């Protein structure tokens, strides 16, 4: 692989991570920001929170560049940092008895896509009620569309364990939605 191509891909070569310059870091941010922001945006109620978590993730990435051993792709490594940041955040929030979108957020509005927005919000609210790890596996697999092999790499588990975790997560989500009185006909 030519040097130019490596640079273009924003590769993190373990031999030169110490000299990893600002331009390369910025490129790395630009290449991954959308996926990382989307991950957090599914998880939290506001843009500001998602933005804070995205920034926190990339600051950790920057601080740990020298520790990156290239045992996985940079994308997987960044995702792993994001997932851990997200899980820790959700645990802290749960400890503070935080409940995401409350019913006041579900008031009817003049939005044309009112029904689908309501469903999405209901789903988001239900998502917050399952465990942080289960939330993550649903976000990674269903919202982000990552294959289970990648989900397993990010969550540092086997592919089989990731599938089992996903299966349990989806069942939990279904149970929570039913407890919230969701009807599948409206979906």
């Amino acid at each position, binding site marked *: 692989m030519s040097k130019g191509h490596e640079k273009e891909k924003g590769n993190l070569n373990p031999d030169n991570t110490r000299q990893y310059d*600002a331009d390369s870091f*910025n490129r790395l*941010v*630009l290449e991954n*920001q*959308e996926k990382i*922001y*989307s991950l957090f*945006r*599914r998880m939290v109620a506001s843009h500001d929170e998602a*933005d804070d978590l*995205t*920034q926190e993730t*990339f*600051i950790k990435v*920057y601080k740990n560049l020298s520790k990156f051993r290239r045992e996985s792709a940079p994308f997987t490594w960044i995702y792993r940092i994001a997932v851990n940041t997200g899980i820790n955040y959700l645990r802290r929030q749960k400890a503070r008895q935080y409940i995401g979108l409350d019913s006041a957020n579900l008031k009817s509005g003049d939005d044309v896509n009112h029904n*689908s927005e309501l*469903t*999405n919000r209901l*789903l988001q609210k239900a998502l917050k009620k399952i465990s942080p790890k289960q939330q993550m596996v*649903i976000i990674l*697999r*269903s*919202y982000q*569309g990552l294959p*289970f092999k990648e989900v397993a790499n990010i969550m540092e588990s086997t592919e089989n364990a990731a*599938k*089992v975790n*996903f*299966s*349990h*997560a*989806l*069942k939990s*989500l*279904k149970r929570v*939605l*039913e407890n919230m009185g969701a009807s*599948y006909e409206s*979906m």
Partner: protein
Amino acid sequence: MKACKDYEDLLPLYASGDLSSTDYENVCEHLKECKECRDYQISLAAITAVIEQDSVEISPSYGAELVVALNRRLDRRSAWQKRLLWVVPAFATAMAVVVITIISLIKTEPANNQWIADLNQEYYYLGFTNTGYFGEILVDDNIPNGDVDLSTDDLYRDAVRQIVENPQISDIDSYLLATGNLDDEDFKKMIEQLKYKIL
């Protein structure tokens, strides 16, 4: 709404399209026969469909804004680190100065009977006879003639006066005991006799 125990864990993966071909065929066969699992499957499919349709809107400028915000934070961090580069050594130096000052202040406090030690380092010292504790004051033979104006008698008196007048004399003088092989009691007796004899 409940699914059959054997299929409960497979149905979510069926809904997301993640089953192996063998499991997929088994589930399809089962769904034809089992209404409960079919209903369960419909609800899971409805959930995954909503999830898959949902998209996050990101402002086109978000990436650039994020890069700016991150660089600003990293610059602030590196400014702090640079500041720490001189703040830490400066603080350490200041602390070292304080510690050295305190130590030197403590050291300038007159040590117990330090002046007796000083006597020995100057021109006269306390000597002791072989017969016991009774001490006599001797002039250092190594002092070149002419360096000291005082006569030997004056030196004796001066030295003994210093011993007697110093209130710390009653304390055990480790220096004197070490050099003179006197214990505390012997030392006190010696001083009393010196007082009587000289003054």
